[in-house]
């Protein structure tokens, strides 16, 4: 338990640091001076402030370039304080059998849902579709159908599943089925099966902040549905860059040990 608290705290701190770092725009003159080298607390700059944008039809506009909103290292960071992820014995066994070098993300494969690499991602919203464009870890996209259609009857298992979305007031609710069992929820290798069913709730609280709650339902590995919550922060003025992970991936073959290993000895 202590190990998880420490690693979760460090990971949360690192992710928090990244989110704060990411507020700074690209014109930092890092090459010119040494002042950024120092670990001094400087003026904090929060997410941009303002009311939640709305479209002409009254629905919330989720558009923009965002940071965060999902786990990277540990899905448990999104759990309510004091609550553990309800792994079944089989789920725990699968998790503990996995080796870091086999993480699909390390091998330039998709992260599925709800894992998000700490690179910006853009929401493009049309009347019939929502697209999430991911800069990295892999340069890919998700599509969510918001035109009222139902799930495909017998979907081929895929990395991002078959997603249908609808409004619940000001919250976009995305229901996804049809996953393959290949992606990992985090570095720690929390697993899932092809029966995985996710329900995401996107609530843009104000201009600059969006709450992302994901309910995970997969009875073989998790004894009951559970919900993780992450915050996404708007990155005004940011543009996505290209990121082709496969062009020079050299790390996977050097990764050592079990994926669920402690982060520090």
């Amino acid at each position, binding site marked *: 338990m202590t190990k998880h608290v420490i690693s979760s705290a460090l990971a949360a701190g690192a992710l928090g640091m990244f989110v704060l*770092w990411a507020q700074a725009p690209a*014109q930092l003159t890092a090459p010119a001076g040494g002042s950024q080298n120092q670990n001094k607390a400087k003026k904090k700059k929060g997410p941009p402030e303002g009311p939640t944008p709305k479209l002409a039809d009254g629905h919330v506009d989720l558009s923009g370039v965002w940071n965060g909103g999902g786990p990277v290292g540990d899905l448990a960071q999104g759990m309510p304080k004091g609550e553990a992820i309800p792994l079944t014995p089989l789920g725990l066994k699968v998790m503990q059998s996995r080796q870091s070098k086999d993480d699909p993300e390390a091998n330039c494969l998709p992260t599925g849902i709800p894992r998000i690499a700490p690179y910006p991602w853009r929401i493009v919203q049309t009347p019939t579709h929502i697209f999430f464009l991911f800069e990295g870890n892999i340069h890919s996209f998700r599509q969510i159908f918001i035109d009222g259609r139902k799930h495909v009857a017998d979907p081929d298992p895929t990395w991002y599943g078959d997603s249908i979305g609808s409004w619940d007031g000001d919250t976009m609710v995305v229901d996804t089925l049809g996953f393959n069992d290949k992606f990992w929820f985090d570095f720690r290798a929390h697993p899932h099966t092809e029966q995985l069913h996710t329900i995401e709730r996107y609530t843009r609280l104000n201009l600059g902040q969006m709450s992302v709650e994901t309910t995970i339902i997969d009875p073989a590995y998790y004894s009951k549905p559970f919900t993780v919550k992450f915050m996404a922060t708007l990155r005004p003025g940011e543009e996505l860059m290209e990121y082709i992970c496969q062009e020079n991936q050299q790390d996977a073959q050097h990764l050592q040990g079990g994926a669920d290993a402690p982060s520090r000895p």
Partner: protein
Amino acid sequence: MKVKLVVLTAALGLLAALPVLAHHSFAAEYDSKQPVELKGKVTQVDWTNPHARFYVDVVDASGNVTNWNLELASPNVLKRNGWTRTSLKVGDEITVQGSRAKDGATMANARTVVLADGKKVFAGSAETGQ
């Protein structure tokens, strides 16, 4: 308004500039208990994803040359932090500090890079608790 770099806390020992590794756990690949300091000449610079890399010829006391593979953050991150693809050049004489690969390869995650003129060039993927 001048924008300042934001640092969460020094107490965690996290670097001011560069964020967590995105596609693999730092601790699975590198050992923060095996710090390395390398001095040598840059032989190659790869401005590529998922990590920018540079290679350094390090000459030991007997004159043997070992070529080391140093890993930086993604160029996307480096660019957003003010680096360019010419910040480091083939032929530069540099000193690198970082953490060695756990499997013993002549490979390390670069934390700092200092040019011969003393100019410190940001480098590395921040060591995290993952």
